[in-house]
């Protein structure tokens, strides 16, 4: 429904530009999308990062899915990659952090006048990918983790096994240490990668998620690394982080192999009340599930959940977990697109068609099943799928999707599933009014307890709906709600009625609609 939505955006790689090196690697990595309520009017606005050229910002002017373009945000000198939303300056509204091949930028929300690039604060100017805001040191200010992909030189050429030039295999190029910026609370971000220990392990980082993975009340960072062991930076509470991914079983696949990690999602896939991890990967690798087992670490649940063979033929990037049909089971959507031409194929026009694949739609249950047939519009979109963000764009209680593609149009997909149950959206707010990224919401119902993240920083290069989404099986009643805030504290709230958006404020103990 892209045209009807009012969003007309085509990612521009700049591949044919005269001064562009052939097979410039950032162009095949695509760019991201942010869903965020910039004007605090209760609905999700849309920001699309452009590769070569100006980003685009659209305001949600529902009812239904209807956007109006507000601004073209001029490029910041970087080839655009990812975007993260968060209240960077602590003024209660949402700002954006934009990553790229070149200088990153903080875009401050100035209210009426829109988004304005903050003064250059010495942001990184190498190749950064996904970013995530969260308050890792619990000082009330949102800090920022930025993954960096690789130390890439555009003059470096790579070749397929047939000797034809193609985009580089990541193993051809060394990775870089990721970056951690501590928000000092006075409008400054200080890079503390070295002091925190994060700079000690360079790797080809792509996706990142901030969440308390160890259950100790402190926010950790999980990073998907391309063709290398993933990192789980466990927060030691004193500003230091140690990578415990190998120790906890979240670094390598269950077969002991490093995989080409791209996008990350977290959700309770095993129904045990703890958030698990879903990682997207290269073709010939599974989209891998790491099931969280408190006290043990993680166990590869890929095969048990039916993902041993589903998706092996495609290369996954953006990923969204959500109960799209409100039946009580988390479904998954994965944006796919190749990073190299099919073996033996020489380049032909239109060039990017050879890299196009269709999205994978998986219906949840005891095991995932391919549900592509139920979404013909989405599965008909052959594209070099990259960014993917899920969020309730039309306020009907189910998650919709925005999918971006390298050198392709962004797709806005309205969720038209039949609702098998009721729903609830929970917005978690800090006393200043900004969303508490990294909070976990637990909903108690007569049909059992469900847990969901209130955290937009998932997927690949993208930022989704920051509200926790719940499906409530038909006939089940809500008994209560508890929030584990990002500072580690827990708070109980009275049971809200279903089929509405509620706002919970830290420390208030009351619920607002």
């Amino acid at each position, binding site marked *: 429904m892209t045209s009807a939505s009012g969003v007309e955006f085509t990612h521009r790689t700049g591949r044919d530009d005269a001064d562009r090196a052939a097979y410039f690697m950032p162009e095949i990595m695509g760019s991201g999308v942010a869903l965020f309520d910039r004007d605090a009017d209760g609905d999700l606005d849309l920001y699309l990062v452009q590769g070569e050229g100006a980003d685009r910002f659209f305001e949600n002017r529902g009812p239904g899915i209807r956007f109006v373009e507000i601004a073209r945000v001029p490029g910041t000198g970087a080839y655009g990659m990812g975007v993260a939303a968060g209240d960077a300056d602590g003024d209660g509204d949402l700002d954006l952090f934009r990553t790229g091949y070149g200088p990153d930028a903080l875009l401050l929300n100035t209210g009426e006048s829109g988004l304005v690039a903050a003064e250059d604060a010495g942001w990184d100017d190498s190749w950064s990918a996904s970013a995530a805001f969260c308050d890792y040191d619990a000082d009330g200010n949102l800090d920022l983790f930025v993954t960096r992909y690789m130390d890439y030189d555009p003059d*470096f050429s790579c*070749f397929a096994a047939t000797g034809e030039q193609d985009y580089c295999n990541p193993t051809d190029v060394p990775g870089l240490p990721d970056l951690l910026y501590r928000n000092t609370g006075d409008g400054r971000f200080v890079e503390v990668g070295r002091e925190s220990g994060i700079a000690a392990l360079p790797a080809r980082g792509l996706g990142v998620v901030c969440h308390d993975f160890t259950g100790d009340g402190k926010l950790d960072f999980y990073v998907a690394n391309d063709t290398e062991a993933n990192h789980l930076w466990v927060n030691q509470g004193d500003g230091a982080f140690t990578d415990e991914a190998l120790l906890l079983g979240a670094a390598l696949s269950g077969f*002991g192999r490093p995989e080409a990690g791209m996008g990350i999602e977290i959700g309770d896939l095993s129904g045990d009340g703890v958030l698990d991890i879903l990682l997207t990967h290269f073709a010939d690798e599974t989209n891998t599930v790491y099931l969280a087992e408190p006290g043990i670490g993680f166990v590869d649940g890929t095969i048990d959940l039916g993902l041993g063979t589903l998706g092996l033929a495609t290369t996954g990037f953006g990923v969204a977990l959500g109960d799209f049909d409100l039946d009580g089971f988390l479904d998954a959507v994965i944006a796919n697109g190749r990073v190299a031409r099919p*073996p033996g194929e020489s380049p032909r026009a239109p060039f990017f068609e050879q890299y196009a694949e269709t999205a994978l739609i998986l219906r949840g249950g005891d095991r995932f099943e391919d549900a592509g047939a139920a979404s013909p519009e989405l599965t008909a979109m052959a594209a070099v799928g990259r960014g993917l963000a899920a969020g309730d764009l039309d306020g009907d209680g189910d998650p919709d999707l925005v999918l971006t593609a390298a050198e392709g149009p962004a797709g806005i997909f309205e969720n038209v599933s039949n609702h098998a149950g009721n729903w609830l959206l929970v917005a978690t707010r800090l006393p200043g009014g900004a969303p508490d990224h990294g909070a976990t919401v637990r909903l108690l119902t007569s049909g059992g307890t469900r847990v969901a993240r209130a955290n937009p920083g998932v997927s690949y290069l993208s930022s989704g709906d920051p509200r926790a989404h719940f499906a409530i099986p038909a006939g089940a009643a809500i008994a209560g709600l508890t929030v584990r805030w990002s500072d580690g504290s827990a708070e109980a709230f009275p049971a809200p009625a279903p089929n509405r958006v509620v706002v919970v404020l830290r420390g208030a103990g009351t619920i607002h609609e």
Partner: protein
Amino acid sequence: MNEARALRAGSLVALLAVLAGACGGPQIPEVGTDGMEPAVREAIRGARDALAADRGNAAAWGRFGMVLHAHRLGAPAGASYTEAARLDGDDHRWPHLHGRLLETAEPARALGLADEALRQNPRFAPALALRARVLEALGDDDAEAAWEALQDLAPESVEAPLALGRRRLLRGDLAGARTAFEGVVERLPSSTAGWSFLAQVSRRLGDPEGAAQATVRARTAARSASLGSTADLDPLLIAVEDLRADSRGREARARRAAASGDHDSAEAIYRRLVNERPGSADLRYNHGNALARLGRTEEAEAAYRAALSRAPDSSAAMANLANLLARGGRDQEADDLYRRSITADPSHVPTLLGASSLHFQRGNLRQAERFLRDALASAPDHPGALQGLGQLLATAGRLGEASATLSRALGAARDAGAAPGQVAGIHFLLADVERQRGRTAQARTHLAQAEALGMNVPPAFRALLEPGR
């Protein structure tokens, strides 16, 4: 299927085969080679011409399939393997390679092909490994039995104990899992997966020290491994890779040339590759190694520095450059580099050995010993580190410790399959230590063993052990 139906089906297959033969057999798959590297085009054309000249030859079809497989041209490679298997139903190679080709894309078909290969050659371990992997990916309960069968058939397999250990870990049999993973890293000390699982299981068994040590080893192994494969070596797949004619194929050949001591060939191939892929730190590093082996010190130094400009934290490049500088008498520069390398990776054994050697030669035995003990902390059975420590202890006059350490070095070298020259060297050192301890009989025994391994023992030393001395 009853006998009559089987007969009818068999007749049909035979009839099709005859018809295919009468029509000159199936068409040779067409492969568009426009745009390919000339060497690749040539390799494909050569295999195709050979096949066209002998279309009834299974091996020619198989080889054409392998050449296509080597260049990732999966569909025509598969068709060629199918025809090779049709022409020679007794050859396990073609269904096995076809199965490897389809292992991840079409696991169910790959399973059938693995079974076919095993029917033709039940003792072909790589086909059994393929079968086990596919069963596991499909979530089939028979996977465990397949891994056990592989372990029985190929006791040297690393893949089988790794898989069985994983399964024990999932069942909560932590002690059993630990034993399996210890077996993995004993057989393959560079197994990232083995160390990683050992770290997990050690942590869960309440052994944080063991877990931390295994984590360090896993990271070190991951850095040195070019690919994350956990599969056992498959000689048929290696033969396929040998047919690669593109730049990466040449790189593999350069590695093999270097391993076999043909450094001239290795240097020539790496020189060409460096020009083709100037951004690769690995190629610069390997080129540096080839140049160093040829005694072309200045060029080797330049190559290592070029590698480090692309991968500044490469401990391997820093260690080898430091070794080169130390050999040239540039001790301070070498020492600085060793220290940088140790900062980047405190458990990098070659760096620690190099640093120890430098300090040993400068007479700084205490620091040299510290480096060696650090090396042994991360690789307790490293023959070179044990040998170095034994030598150092002997020099320091700590003869009892030297004797014990060198004896351990001897066992470790044998276990690691060290070259006879290295084993002979340890015997010689032991002979000298035992002589100094007044244990002449033992000294003579070690000396004899050193000589038996081809060592030319200096006459003056032998004279020291003659009766009456």
